[in-house]
């Protein structure tokens, strides 16, 4: 890091690639976990025959998808169509690299980490728009537009909710935020966490905010024309987004490794992440889908004021600290 | 009351002007009250005049050595046209002369306004008429009340404008419009002379207010004073219709008859006489100018009287009579008897206004102006006839009526200065008695020859006649009083002159009475007897035709030439050429503006490059290099 500016970032690049791999693998388990939870919610068992507890089911699915024909529709804009899934996935994988997994350590330890985590995934909106547009399909385009509108809208409350954490900790560097973390941040920043959690669900385009891919209206939204590995990458992006958001929330809102020293702390952090992931799955399978206008109203008229309220509260409290 | 009016003499000007403005702006809504309301305007003037007159009579005129005729009873001024210099003072001063004029103007205007109620009752332009009368009253008052030639000139031009507007009052009649233009242009000739006179005066004395001018006159050379006096007289002749600028007054009879009475008999046309009287010190210092005034006055008096003989229009008779009588006044002025001139002005104002209003009454009743269609109106319109007889006797110079006294003074003064002029005036008196008798006979005696039913007007029409008949009869006895008011001693009657003029008057009346005993039949007799002379007289010696041949037509031709060549070809051509050129340039330039934003942006960037190059290049160095290496300078 000393001398040249770029060593840190080359390191970050390597870690980013590693993070992508990790996310990819974690996604497999994420999908399995979702199917198990969904099964339980729907009073059935979910995958169970392939491997122990059906653990290898998604691996098998993966193999199947890799072998499936990769179709590019004739009226599609081929290069754009092909590159779109990657543009959706890569930023999400990159975002994971700034998460502080252990005391004083994050794969990419940068002074603007908090901003990085919010900024980089926003690039995936472009991928969604590209996917929807390049398909040359009205449903897909509509889905892409919806998704972009939704994600841009929910970026605002999400950023504001993270801002309250930044205010409390007085730093944009995630590692430093974690060091400044105290247990009473949870009650104090309760509203902020709620806003963050809800808008994260919306950012991931998951139910009940899955308007962009609403099967009953838009078939499957922006990735309706995708198949095989590219479709898989979209799914990975979705689960990657869920996992990344949960990781970030577990670390910076719920304390992460700060509850206990050493590896034990990291274990607690991962456990909290699993809890958040589970909560998201639970929400998806419990609540009915929202209408487009409800979706927008929620972002602008409920979540944004709430986040602002939280910032106001913290602004007052900070004076006492 | 009197003190307030006199020390604030400007009220007599401003109040009629305000009435004029108010009537002009709001009069149409209160049509019925307008005439009555208007009378406050002359009433103000009359009140001021009477107050001034009584104050002048009370003041001790003897031993006064100031520049006014009598000690001013009211005075005030303010500075005007301020610039780097002191500016010009414009203000008012009321002395005896002004007081007399104020009374004349106020009284005649009041009578005329009263008379007009009946005469103009059915005219749609009633409101405009009264507004103009008020404006005229204000202007005339300004003319007489001003303490300097600037104020006088402003009033002078304003009465001219009012005269123009009132002559052309029935502007839908082409003859009236033409007469108005003729009057305006003719008097303009005189006014230019007057303005030149003022300019010379300003140049040589640096002053235009009476006291300053009068105190400066003795210091001027005789030639200068003569020039100034003659130029002022040109203005006076124009206004007072003296030869050769008399041609407008007969035509001015196109205006309403009460207007003729007020403006073209009693007041405005007398303004020339007033001007000479007012600036008498100037004329006094210029004997040669006096000779000119005397000559023109006497000639005009005689010539106009001869023309009046042959007129068939009752108003034309009176118009030429007015010219003739004004000639009497100017002759008196030329003879140095300006007091006599003013005396005659006042008596003439009374009896000529009376005669005009009487003719108005006749015209109103008989619905014609041609005396050949009248006759026998004595029985049909007794009051008008009675007052007319008083007025015509006064004009003819029958004692003891007003005209006799003043005319006697005039003839006496002229006779003592120039016997030739005196004889001319006596001849004019004879003709005066003759033509007025002729008019009287044709109008009121014999049998009615018209087709209408002549009748007396309402009381508003005969009351002014009666009211004017009083001064027309009695003003002659006020001669001494008037002279005293003017700061001079009155002259007693000269019996030789009186006997002569009485004889002449009775001779004229007798001849007239006999010649026209049968009305229009005799008219034809006379015409036949005089052969070719009669039409010549009727046409006023063809002077109008001469003027139109010598002046009007060349001017028209010149105007046409200028219009066709200079205005149409040069100025219009230039103006239209500029317009066409601009439009062509605009059309050409608009092709660049074809709405392509990006082309504009390209030009913008290219312009930036050019500018930057211009700034970046070291021109001085290049110039140096060029001059050293190539010898380019």
């Amino acid at each position, binding site marked *: 890091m000393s001398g040249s500016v770029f060593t840190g970032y080359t390191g970050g690049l390597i870690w980013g690639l590693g993070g992508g791999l990790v996310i990819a693998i974690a996604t497999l388990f994420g999908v399995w976990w979702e199917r198990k939870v969904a099964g339980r919610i729907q009073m059935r068992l979910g995958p169970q025959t392939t491997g122990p507890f059906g653990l290898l089911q998604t691996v098998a699915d993966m193999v199947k998808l890799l072998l499936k024909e990769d179709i590019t529709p004739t009226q599609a804009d081929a290069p754009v169509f092909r590159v779109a899934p990657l543009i959706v996935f890569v930023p999400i994988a990159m975002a994971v690299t700034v998460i502080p997994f252990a005391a004083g350590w994050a794969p990419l330890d940068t002074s603007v980490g908090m901003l990085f985590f919010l900024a980089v995934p926003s690039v995936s909106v472009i991928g969604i728009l590209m996917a929807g547009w390049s398909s040359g399909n009205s449903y897909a385009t509509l889905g892409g537009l919806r998704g972009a509108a939704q994600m841009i809208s929910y970026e605002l409350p999400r950023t504001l909710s993270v801002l309250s954490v930044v205010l409390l900790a007085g730093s944009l560097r995630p590692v430093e935020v974690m060091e400044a973390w105290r247990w009473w941040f949870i009650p104090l920043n309760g509203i902020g966490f709620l806003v963050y959690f809800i808008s994260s669900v919306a950012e991931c385009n998951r139910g009940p905010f899955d308007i962009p891919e609403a099967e009953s209206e838009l078939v499957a939204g922006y990735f309706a024309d995708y198949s095989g590995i590219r479709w898989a990458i979209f799914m990975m992006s979705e689960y990657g987004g869920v996992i990344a958001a949960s990781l970030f929330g577990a670390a910076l809102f719920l304390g992460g490794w700060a509850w206990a020293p050493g590896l034990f702390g990291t274990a607690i952090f991962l456990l909290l992440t699993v809890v958040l992931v589970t909560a998201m799955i639970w929400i998806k399978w419990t609540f009915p889908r929202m209408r487009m206008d409800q979706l927008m109203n929620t972002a602008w008229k409920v979540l944004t004021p709430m986040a602002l309220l939280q910032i106001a509260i913290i602004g007052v409290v900070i004076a006492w600290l | 009351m009197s003190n307030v009016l006199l020390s604030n003499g400007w009220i007599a000007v401003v109040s009629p002007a305000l009435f004029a403005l108010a009537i002009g702006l709001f009069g149409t809504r209160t049509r019925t009250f307008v005439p009555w309301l208007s009378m406050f305007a002359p009433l103000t003037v009359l009140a001021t005049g009477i107050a001034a007159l009584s104050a002048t009579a009370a003041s001790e005129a003897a031993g006064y050595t100031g520049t006014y005729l009598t000690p001013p009873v009211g005075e005030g001024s303010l500075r005007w046209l301020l610039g780097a210099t002191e500016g010009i003072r414009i203000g008012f001063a009321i002395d005896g002369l002004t007081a007399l004029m104020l009374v004349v103007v106020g009284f005649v205007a009041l009578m005329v306004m009263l008379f007009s109620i009946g005469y103009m009752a059915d005219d749609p332009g009633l409101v405009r008429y009264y507004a103009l009368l008020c404006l005229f009253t204000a202007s005339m008052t300004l003319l007489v009340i001003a303490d300097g030639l600037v104020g006088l000139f402003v009033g002078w031009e304003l009465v001219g404008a009012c005269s123009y507007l009132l002559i052309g009052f029935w502007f839908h009649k082409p003859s009236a419009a033409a007469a108005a233009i003729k009057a305006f242009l003719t008097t303009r000739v005189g006014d230019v002379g007057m303005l030149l006179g003022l300019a010379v005066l300003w140049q040589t004395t640096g002053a235009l207010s009476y006291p300053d001018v009068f105190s400066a006159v003795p210091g001027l050379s005789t030639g200068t004073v003569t020039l100034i006096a003659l130029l002022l007289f040109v203005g006076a002749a124009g206004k007072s219709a003296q030869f050769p600028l008399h041609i407008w007054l007969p035509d001015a009879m196109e205006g309403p008859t009460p207007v003729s009475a007020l403006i073209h008999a009693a007041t405005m046309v007398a303004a020339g006489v007033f001007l000479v009287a007012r600036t008498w010190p100037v004329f006094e210092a210029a004997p040669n100018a006096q000779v000119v005034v005397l000559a023109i006055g006497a000639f005009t008096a005689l010539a106009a009287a001869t023309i009046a003989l042959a007129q068939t229009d009752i108003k034309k008779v009176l118009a030429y009579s007015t010219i003739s009588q004004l000639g009497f006044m100017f002759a008196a002025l030329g003879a140095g008897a300006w007091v006599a001139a003013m005396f005659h002005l006042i008596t003439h104002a009374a009896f000529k206004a009376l005669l005009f209003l009487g003719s108005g009454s006749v015209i109103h009743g008989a619905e014609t102006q041609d005396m050949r269609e009248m006759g026998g109106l004595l029985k049909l319109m007794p009051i008008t006839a009675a007052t007319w007889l008083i007025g015509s006797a006064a004009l003819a110079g029958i004692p003891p009526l007003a005209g006799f006294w003043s005319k006697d003074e005039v003839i006496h003064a002229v006779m003592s200065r120039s016997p030739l002029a005196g004889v001319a005036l006596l001849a004019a008196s004879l003709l005066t008695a003759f033509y007025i008798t002729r008019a009287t006979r044709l109008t009121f005696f014999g049998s009615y020859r018209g087709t209408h039913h002549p009748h007396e007007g309402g009381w508003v029409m005969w009351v002014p006649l009666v009211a004017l008949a009083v001064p027309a009869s009695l003003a002659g006895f006020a001669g001494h009083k008037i002279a005293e008011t003017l700061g001079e001693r009155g002259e007693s009657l000269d019996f030789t002159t009186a006997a002569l003029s009485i004889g002449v008057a009775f001779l004229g009346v007798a001849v007239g009475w006999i010649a026209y005993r049968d009305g229009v039949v005799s008219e034809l007799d006379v015409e036949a007897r005089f052969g070719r002379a009669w039409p010549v007289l009727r046409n006023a010696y063809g002077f109008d035709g001469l003027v139109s041949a010598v002046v009007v037509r060349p001017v028209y031709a010149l105007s046409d030439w200028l219009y066709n060549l200079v205005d149409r070809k040069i100025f219009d051509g230039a103006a239209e050429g500029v317009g066409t050129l601009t439009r062509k340039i605009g059309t050409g330039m608009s092709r660049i503006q074809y709405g392509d934003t990006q082309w504009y942006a390209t030009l913008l960037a290219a312009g*930036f490059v050019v500018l930057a190059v211009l700034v970046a290049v070291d021109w001085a160095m290049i110039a140096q290099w060029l001059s050293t290496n190539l010898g380019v300078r």
Partner: protein
Amino acid sequence: MSISMIELVFWMIAAASLLGALTVVFTRDVTRMALGLGVFLLSVAGWFVYFSQTFLAAAQVFVYVGGVLVLVLFAIMLVHRSGAGRPALESRHTIDSIMVAVAVFVLVVSALQDVGSALTVTPLPGSPDAISAALLGPMLPHFEALGVLLLAALAAVIVISGGERS
């Protein structure tokens, strides 16, 4: 190879940004133009990283790539409705424009000759602390003015894009 690592990075970023810019200017496909713009904007973020302005880089990504570019794509999709065939982007008066552009380039480069030679190699990092100190210190008026400007722009956008009321 005399080229250093840092120079390599410089030229990589330069190549990316030039590529993006040229795509924006020359491509005939609307979507690719937008993608080229995305590449360009990301490369600008790369420039910021190169100059150690990490906060600026993150903000660039957040505001431009995540915001403005999305708006551009939105606009493209709203205006060129899908299914209507892909509209070809056309250019005109290219010759004069290229002359002007080259002239401007030559002119400004020659004007900045002296400035360019004064560059130091190592830029100073712009940390969030320093930025906040600057924004709330000497640049506070700029900061406040920006707030007002953004509000005005927001209002303007709402009014302009609000559409006609009956």
